[in-house]
């Protein structure tokens, strides 16, 4: 039975899972919810996601939600089954560092990028409001400090732990949206190691294909 992924491509958490599925070569079916309202239905809350969110992954009878948890599950079950791509190394120390960088993404990187894309991408589209320049300015300042740290962390490395890993994937969806806005690509492009890292990522086949799905 094929894996089924419930979500929207423009949702950054959904896109994390899409990239992960593609990188591991896992076949899947994509099912957008009927509507936003459908996520709050009693049936969805009882059987798919207790907090009424996406993405949700169905693997046979097994239901799992929360994007980072879904990705770790996919790695632990399918890594090495369809191709040679390693997203979490088997070495316990390297794997520990992957988790550390995943924590950096959710604790330090995600919030300022989300401020920017929350205004530039989502405010008008979903809330009918104009982007708030104050919030964007704050987001850029906060993100600059984080990217200064990343510039040092990436010294002599192509990816966060050296080799490509799940930690790099988790940074992709929100970065894709923010970098795609001309006024903000400088944040990455002004820092040579960060620029190099982002170019490596966005030129990977699976990641390129995943970003195409967001556009459509």
């Amino acid at each position, binding site marked *: 039975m094929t894996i089924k992924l419930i979500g929207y491509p423009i949702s950054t958490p959904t896109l994390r899972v899409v990239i992960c599925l593609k990188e591991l070569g896992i076949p899947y079916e994509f099912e957008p919810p009927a509507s936003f309202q459908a996520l709050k239905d009693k049936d969805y809350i009882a059987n798919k996601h*207790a*907090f009424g969110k996406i993405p949700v992954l169905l693997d046979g009878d097994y239901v799992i939600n*929360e994007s980072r948890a*879904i990705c770790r*599950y996919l790695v632990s079950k399918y890594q090495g089954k369809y191709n040679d791509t390693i997203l979490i190394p088997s070495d316990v120390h390297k794997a*520990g560092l992957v*988790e550390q960088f995943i924590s950096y993404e959710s604790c330090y990187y995600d919030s300022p990028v989300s401020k920017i894309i929350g205004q530039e991408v989502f405010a008008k589209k979903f809330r009918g409001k104009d982007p708030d320049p104050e919030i964007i300015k704050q987001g850029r300042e906060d993100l600059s400090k984080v990217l200064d740290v990343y510039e040092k962390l990436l010294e002599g490395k192509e990816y966060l732990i050296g080799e490509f890993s799940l930690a790099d994937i988790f940074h992709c969806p929100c970065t894709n949206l923010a970098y795609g806005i001309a006024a903000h690509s400088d944040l990455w492009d002004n820092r040579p190691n960060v620029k190099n890292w982002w170019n490596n990522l966005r030129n990977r086949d699976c990641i390129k294909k995943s970003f195409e799905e967001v556009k459509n």
Partner: protein
Amino acid sequence: MSIKLIGFPASGPLLKVIITLRELGLPYELEIPSNIQAIKEEDYIKNKHPFGKIPVLIDGDFVINESRPICTYLVSKYQGKHNNTNLIPTDVHKAGLVGQYVSYESSYYDPPISKIVYQEIYARKFQNKDPDPEVIKQAREELAKVLDVYEKILEGKEYLNGEYSIADLFHIPSTHYVYSIDAHSDLWDSRPNVKNWWNRLCNREAVKKTIDEIAK
């Protein structure tokens, strides 16, 4: 060589690691930084934590930071070595669900409870400010909705995934801090499944020992 843990004793993230070390039966040394400034110094930033945070764990030559990655590293390396306590199941589907509940803690539970912790404990102590009743009221309402979901999740179960796991553990420090405030214990005590879950967690040896130390 003993495991070394760096952090401030009352810190919630540090307590996650301490409880994990104790649950796994692992000896360790705690090193308390001399003050807040010490963790912003160049040497600390370069060699311990690039964002100047605690906790940091040093295991021989291996340095890892961020509390949740530290804990999952300890589990992956030491689970079953010193005792029989299982914090992450070996079964890939059960482990996946533990990961899902870990994500619930950081995505939904932690934000409102951290607001209450900050207002009730840190504002006065570290910033000479009075707790803001509006913020507390809002956070209580948000946490109440989360605990309503937990009440359903815990129906017929002793712990979030049935058996005790790292997902339950991650909830302990912040819950202890807020539950200990008389005005807020009702949030847990008024929900039978949640109340039982919390009592069960408090009665674990490793948890009791750690909580007693905070009181001192």
